[in-house]
């Protein structure tokens, strides 16, 4: 993952899921974080959209399998 993206993402995750010590990995999924469910998922997406000033489509969100995919999507949209 890109360093800058990872740092900002980590901050978002820690806030949205209220886990101050959370460490991100590419392979991380909702299973790995207790507070990450379908409800908070959208909160996460909204926060990511605001932070990086990007916009996701439903199809893109549906295709996200893990944190790595999310980071890749963000990279693609920023470039």
């Amino acid at each position: 993952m890109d360093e800058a993206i990872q740092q900002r993402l980590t901050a978002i995750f820690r806030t949205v899921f209220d886990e101050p010590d959370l460490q991100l990995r590419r392979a991380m999924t909702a299973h790995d974080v207790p507070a990450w469910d379908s409800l908070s998922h959208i909160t996460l997406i909204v926060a990511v959209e605001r932070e990086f000033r990007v916009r996701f489509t439903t199809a893109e969100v549906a295709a996200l399998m893990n944190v790595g995919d999310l980071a890749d999507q963000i990279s693609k949209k920023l470039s």
Partner: protein
Amino acid sequence: MPLSSVEFLLFVALSVIAFRLSPRRGRPHVLLVASYGFYCTWNPQMAGALLGITVVCYYAALYVESSRGRPLAPRITVAVVSGLILYIVAWKARAVLSSGGGIVIPLGVSYYTFRLISYLLDVHWGTVPAERSLVPFAAYVAFFPQMMAGPIERASSFLPQLGAGGTADRGRTFEGVMRILLGFFKKFVVADNLALIVDYGYRHLGSGSSVPSALSFYLYPVQLYADFSGLADIALGVGLLFGLKGPENFDAPFSASSISEYWRRWHMTLTSWLRDYVFMPLRMATRTWGTAGLIVSVVVNMMLIAVWHGFTLGFVAFGAVNATFLVVDVLTSARRQKFWRRHPGLLRAATIVGMIVTYHIVSLSETFFRAPSFADAARLLGGLGAGLHGFGEALAVVTAPPNHYAWIALPAFVLTETADAVRRRRGMGLPAGLPRWARWSAVTCLAGAFVFMALLFLARKSATNPFVYANF
């Protein structure tokens, strides 16, 4: 053919044997023939409709995938998905309008249309490749064990397994038979006996004692669970005999300490389906609406779950009760989490209280599900506060012979919950490292239980309680 019949057991045995004897590439064909054969014993005309719909979706998906980016592709998706939704809505509406239960929804309509919709949307979004050959696809749509009451399996989980010919080893065979037995046990010993008590309760609602109301109120959720999870066990067990592992539909729902958690543990394939294809898209569309968007998404999601069962006032009320409590739960969960973090000692007690409260909410909503009319539901709920007079007599009636036999449902339920817990912890296969006599005993006892069950089915002279969820 009904599920609890010797014919069905024979049919499964023969299909499984034919399936396993075929070479890997022939297996989808065997499964297809078996599934359509099964469907035809219910309704040959609708089997034709099923085939037609399957073929249309098959070609639609291939087109959508190959023409991605072109404007026609999403329109095809919308058209076919809308058509499917219309199809299922039309049947549900027809069932309600021809009152008195004249028209029964053809077998599996709710289940196979959902499979097709999920497949099309997945292909449209690119999360699943379109299936290139018609036979395995048609077998997926018509897969007979899941035709009666789900689970609603996704193409991405089913097709690869079928492509590999299913992994039918001895472990899975044992597990499959165990699950089938467990499913029938839940249905006949737990659900049917509780039904006797619950039916008694509903017949005596105006009696002035709180006993009938209380019995029905507290026992119906268990009855419904046993009935429905029993059906899921049978479906999954039969799938395992084919070497195909299907998705679980239940995960100890009564251990949920909040209504949100309950819905993550009950009818999981339906709720996850709705989450992926309704809730998420809807939430994405409303994500800028703030809290209102959240509430709208939760309510719409829940109401769809409710009317999926049917278009009656009872189901709508069921949905409304759940939706209300869900919204409350969702809106207050963040604050509650913070509170528990500050008072960890109270968490244990809160969990238990939560389980009790959740059970009451569930039972309240299911009262509208079960009661033949709104008035009856109101009477039952009113009856709960009727006080304790007449308690002794009412209780005596329900526990007197021969009614006392029905109460075996409760210890039986403890047994089945234990079995479920074992299944969740370590699966239902034979433990490894058993001495030879123990392994042989397990197999002979399993075979004995299976034969016993076949004899029970054979010896039946009259029709008995149908499975509740096979009507959806």
